[in-house]
């Protein structure tokens, strides 16, 4: 009786062990498949397989070996490292809810993320960086079933004028940017303290007086892109559906008047004696049509 029981147990164990091995083989096979992931940007082709060593060396400390954002440093970091298995990214040129382009990710890794622990990885070669992008993509199956959204079009930047800055302020009030960012852009709007990210962790709005650079870049085009596409995973929505390109540029110029460094826009605002918006005044029905460029209000 006893030997029979033992035999049965041995059999069961063997079956379990075999199942375990075959399961491990399946996942290993899958991992092998996933490591076939590629990334393309700047005429470069990245291969996930080539980035395995660099990922472990430079990225896993925060983003975790499994790409789940649970690296050993993650507990000490705020904002938290990105969880690549979810494939939700802040810095995109694509509509809210869609995957970013490889180029977006390539730019992010090169630039680093302002006001976070993510540094610029430009010290790595561009080939190493594009390989790492392929590696980042291999953590989520979403890259196999979906294509990145169509990148938004950013028209050529117009000349900054006093009228455009004034119009930008009207857009700032109409879109109620101040509800979070504050009437002066000091991140102290009425909703600022209640904001949480998609993991329900507290998150602060951007303080325009604090930083010269934004989360996803520092140029006027970057600023344009940020509010048009929104930052997925955060409270910052996409405004692309309701802001015309002209208005968007006006808003870019107005936002530049709020920043700490010297800007052309700030100079013009000073000459205009531009006051912060009054949120209690009735919101203007619509932004005035952009005026033809007048050069007389421009500083010399």
């Amino acid at each position, binding site marked *: 009786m006893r030997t029979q029981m033992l035999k049965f147990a041995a059999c069961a164990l063997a079956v379990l062990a075999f199942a375990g091995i075959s399961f491990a083989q399946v996942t290993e096979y899958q991992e092998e498949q996933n490591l076939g992931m590629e990334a393309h940007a700047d005429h470069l082709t990245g291969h996930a397989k080539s980035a395995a060593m660099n990922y472990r060396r430079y990225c896993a400390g925060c983003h975790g070996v499994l790409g789940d954002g649970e690296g050993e440093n993650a507990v000490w970091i705020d904002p938290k490292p990105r969880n690549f298995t979810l494939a939700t990214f802040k810095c995109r040129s694509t509509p809210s*809810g869609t995957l970013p382009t490889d180029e977006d990710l390539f730019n992010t890794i090169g630039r680093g993320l302002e006001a976070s622990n993510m540094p610029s990885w430009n010290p790595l070669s561009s080939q190493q960086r594009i390989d790492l992008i392929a590696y980042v993509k291999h953590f989520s199956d979403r890259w196999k079933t979906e294509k990145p959204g169509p990148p938004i079009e950013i028209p050529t930047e117009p000349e900054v004028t006093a009228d455009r800055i004034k119009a930008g302020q009207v857009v700032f009030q109409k879109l*109620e940017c101040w*509800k979070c960012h504050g009437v002066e852009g000091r991140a102290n709007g*009425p909703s600022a303290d209640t904001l949480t990210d998609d993991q329900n962790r507290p998150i602060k709005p951007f303080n325009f007086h604090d930083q010269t650079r934004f989360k996803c870049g520092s140029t006027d085009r970057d600023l344009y892109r940020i509010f048009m596409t*929104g930052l*997925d995973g955060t409270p910052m*929505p996409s405004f692309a*559906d*309701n802001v015309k390109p002209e208005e968007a540029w006006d808003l870019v110029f107005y936002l530049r008047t709020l920043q700490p460094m010297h800007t052309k826009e700030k100079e013009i605002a000073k000459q205009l004696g531009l006051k912060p918006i009054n949120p209690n005044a009735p*919101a203007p029905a619509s932004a005035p049509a952009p005026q033809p460029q007048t050069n007389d209000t421009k500083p010399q």
Partner: protein
Amino acid sequence: MKKQLLFKAILALSAALILSAAWMVSQRSVKAAPPSESSITGTVKLEGTPPHQRPIDMSKEPSCAAVHKANPVTTENVVVGTDGGLKNVVVYLSEGWSGPETAVSSGPNWDQHGCQYIPHVMGLDVNQHFKVTNSDPTSHNIHPMPKPGGPNHEWNKSQPSGAPPIDTSWPAEEVAIHVKCNIHPWMSGYMVVVKGPYGVSDDSGSFKVEGVPPGNYTLTAWQETYGAQTQKVTVAAGKPATANFTFKAK
């Protein structure tokens, strides 16, 4: 030679005619009345004392506070109406449905009014289009948060006052997708995406799931605070079935 060509042309034309006629007939038969569809009706009740619903302070958004001046609003985690009827429960066929994913054709509307979502809970079919509208004089951001890493993806769009509706849909089943507005943190609602027919309980807790062919089904009732309950239901041809649910207050 010419004659042969003409003959060929006539042959091709007649073939095309026959094919198109056949296609039209087949389309007609699809559109014909479905075989004796029935429905499932019932009531959802709450047993016990419903949890206290906190009043919502909308003083940070005066235009919305004004809407509710006469009738102060509370949270809507558990809404109990007449005779203990539980409102906002989505009842759907979780097993047994073999028809198309999108059984309901007309798209429902998800409105933002008085800084609240109307309806608070909305049933949807997979790929069923719906509209998001803003009737408030203030901006909202619509931020549905499906399960991270799942087949539905989070998005976040601003909708200023007077902006055109957003028309969209969900590609996969999900019970349920929480929707919030980051500008007004008290705003909370759910979209319940299922395959096939569904019903949402009204003030008295009554629901009706229409367009159910005869067969055996598992019926699931989902409530945002109490979760899901299931029961087996058999639907006979032309005879509405009945199913009642009772949730217990915790």
